[in-house]
């Protein structure tokens, strides 16, 4: 008898609790910035594509849902000519973001990716690349890499001395 009354009391008490249920989609849930949602490709502070087509995201992906192919511009800067993510396979584990040496691939707090047709969940590069730096600001991989690209010659990266003249003695 006592336990029944206790249960009733608990149920009654819950009626005055703060409500967890929200009226989605009219009302949006708060997602933390580090929430692992939609995957985007970002740009560096100069507006260049951050992705250098190193294939690390593809290889670390446990469901193998990332496929890309690399290309190079005239000045030696590498970029992906195609970049495809099959979101119908993606498990949003975030390994790709962790593996990315250039902060190019990022998981952002957006979960509204449902589709009626599974084929529509295949995202190409044009669907992935955004015009911004995403969560990580200020990083430009080519500024620290030793490779020369258009606009940055040898020895012009951070922490580099000017190129050595091998024909000099010392």
């Amino acid at each position, binding site marked *: 008898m006592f336990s029944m009354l206790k249960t009733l009391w608990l149920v009654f008490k819950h009626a005055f609790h703060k409500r967890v249920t929200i009226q989605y989609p009219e009302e949006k849930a708060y997602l933390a910035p580090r929430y692992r949602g939609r995957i985007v490709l970002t740009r560096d502070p100069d507006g260049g594509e951050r992705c250098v087509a190193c*294939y690390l995201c593809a290889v670390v992906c446990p469901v193998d849902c990332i*496929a890309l192919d690399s290309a*190079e511009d005239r000045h030696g800067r590498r970029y992906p000519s195609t970049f*495809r993510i*099959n979101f119908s396979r993606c498990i949003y584990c975030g390994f790709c973001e962790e593996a990315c040496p250039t902060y190019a691939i990022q998981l952002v707090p957006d979960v509204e990716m449902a589709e009626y047709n599974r084929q529509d969940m295949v995202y190409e590069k044009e669907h992935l690349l955004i015009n911004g730096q995403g969560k990580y600001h200020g990083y430009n991989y080519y500024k620290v*890499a030793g490779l020369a690209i258009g606009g940055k010659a040898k020895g012009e990266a951070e922490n*580099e001395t000017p190129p050595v003249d*091998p024909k000099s*003695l010392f």
Partner: protein
Amino acid sequence: MATIHIDGKPYEADPEKNLLQTSLTLGFDLPYFCWHPALGSVGACRQCAVRQYRNEEDTQGQIVMACMVPAADGTRISIEDEEAREFRRSVIEWLMVNHPHDCAVCDEGGECHLQDMTVMTGHAYRRFRFRKRTFNNQYLGPFINHEMNRCIQCYRCVRYYKDYAGGRDLDAFASHNHVYFGRSEDGILENEFSGNLVEVCPTGVFTDKTLKTHYTRKWDLQSAPSVCAHCSLGCNTLVGTRYGGARRILNRYHYDINGYFLCDRGRYGYEFVNRPERIRHPLLHEGAHDTETYSKPETCSADVALKEARIRLRRANRIIGIGSPRASLESNYALRSLVGEDNFFNGLPAAESHLVTVALEILRHGPVRSASLREIEEADAVLVLGEDITQTAPRMALAVRQSVMRTPRETARKLGVPAWHDRAIRDVAQSDRGPLFIAAIDETRLDDVSTAAITRAPNDLARFGFAVARALHPEAPPVDGLSESDTTLARQVSDALANADHPVIITGTGLGNEALLQAAANVAWALLRCEKPAALAFVVPEANTFGAGMLDGRPLREAYDAVSSGDADTAIILENDLYQRTHDVDVDRFLGGLKSIIALDSLRNATTDRAHVVLPAGTFAESDGTFVNNETRAQRFFQALPPEGDIAESWRWLGRLAAGSAPSEEPAWKYLDTIIDAMVADYPELRGVRDAAPSADFRSNGARFPRSPRRFSGRTAIHAQFDVNEPSPPADHDSPLSFSMEGSTAVPPASLVSHYWSPGWNSVQALNKFQEEVGGANRGGPPGICLIQPEKNLHPFFTEIPATFRRSGEKFVVLGLPHIFGSDELSRHAPALAERIPHAYVTISDADARARGVSEGDQLVLRIFGREHKLPARIRPKLAPGILGIPMGFPGHAGLVFPVDGHL
């Protein structure tokens, strides 16, 4: 055998080897950079440090470099010693001080020895806070990309390029932490073996420039074991593919053939596979035989093409089949079965066909063994008779270059210098080189290491060979009228060969001279009669020339006659551009006389343009088959790329053609093993082909061997733009390999190795785990089976000695000059390689040039068969007067059969 103690445990070791090699063979992960099994030790990088103890009681010991200490009996070392580990970790830390932050954009990433070693030693965090030194890069030609910042100064590149491959234009510059490896100025690396720098360099300084244009990481390359299709040596390769295209060629270790190295033609010739001139669909071509109404061929489905071809075959009066030395043994056999023995032609011009027969007869009925490249490398006296091997069989030239070090090595060994101690051996050797004699029509790229090099007309080269044989053995036929100097030299050569333990004679069909083959055979037989284990190496023009020769086809000339005499009216031409083989007037007449032409080929060419039905044949990358190399070794190559669309191996097409008219009918040979069984039943001599590689039902623990590495990426996205449901991987009924990353993880038999990888070893150096001992034979034995074994009985000497060369009047003898880049029909379609093809020219001797007032670069008009060839002159001081040379197989004068008469 010696017993050594590593970390307190006893192991069996070979005292002839050093501790590093021994530790690696025993399976220890000991890091190293400068040591390479083929280059030996110099102790430059200080990476393989271990602690060595004097005896059991010694607890202090000392740090030594494992690569510089022999694995002598009773040696006690510790690899796990804390101080030795710390030493190795700090060496890596120093090396990484200036190493750029490049891995993401570095082509070596994922297969980098430096990455592997860094992980192995445990260095992870950069403590050095100061700036990195940088270098400017150089342009090194179309094959090699230079990124000098990544260098760790191990000196492997110059040791390989200069000491091993004989290059002169790569060196170390500057000093202390500025040491720079490059050319004195930007320019193309001249050496024919420069591509190996890609594999020799432990990091990303030298990378494959062709791979860079379609870059793929090692873990993403679906690879298969293959055999190089660009010369007769049959070097083993790994073909890496991705997104339906071939992306690079890597060396596949074959202990007896290519070892660790390939030539640049083999490494960079692959790109023809991806070219737009590939035939990817069957073509129908109405009125093709009538050049006036030349119409554009129309693509059609396989069924329509087969139907059309079958109708044409049914209507035919007599069908002839023209085989090819660049098609696999199976394809040639399939054609031969389809058209019948009497109607099968081997696709070679009469002269070449004859030479191949002569060479095969020497091997079949003579007592001499065919030399493998390993034997050539280990030969202590070599005679090269007539063939310019650097151009026709480049990898063999690299082997010959090693052979001259054999004698100095022996001297060093007597002084107690171990065989792996490269620096000391070179100090002992100085400029001392073992005997190498080169007799050629002109200077060759091997002359710099030769004891003596003579240049004569082909007949006189043969006469010289006969004279050497005579000097060796009194039963050999004498040569009359040989000059004093040649007689002396012949005596010198014969002495050197007779004093050698492993003499090798090399010749080939390149000069189109039968007497040369016979002279070389005489020398080898004379040596055998002197109880010397001589070996003979023939160089033939193409990957399967000997294979095509062993099927007893008759030469092209007889096929042409069969049409002109009237009864043959239909031809099936297998992977053969007749315009490359014989004079275009003859080919025009032949093709014009045919009612129906059915051609199978992979690249569009002049012959397929005139065919009524063209069937798309697979290249080496899309085919299963067997090539027979210059030592008659049958070697299997496998599909690296599942054939796209209608592309199929020629033998498969021919099987479908033979099947009959209904499209549903079963082809005559459904699988590779079925056709091999049929072939072996018809040709007992070819029975070794069956064992050249395991058959399709071979399994390891019930599983196939995967073509893709275990970390192959993108499986569920790669085709997703077409269909989000992944297709099942292509089935493979012809080999024990699968188009997948799943399967056996065991080390496969050497003929089925499709990539080198081992835990912790992502670079090509993982090869260590695929050898019986590091630098030794392939695990389970080297792939391939030699089809012809020498006879026990001695063979009587050839006695027909040709007359000395005399020019007749104003006539010149025009010889074909082979070119590593350009003379091979397929590889010249590869864009990178095409950049290295020289412009056509004509070589003329000094004397002739003076007599005619020709100076270097003058345009000469050379008349051959009434046709004028306008070519710039190159004056060659050593060429015999009366002889001209033009590059072989170059556009504009392909189809000339050399030697040929010409007028200026």
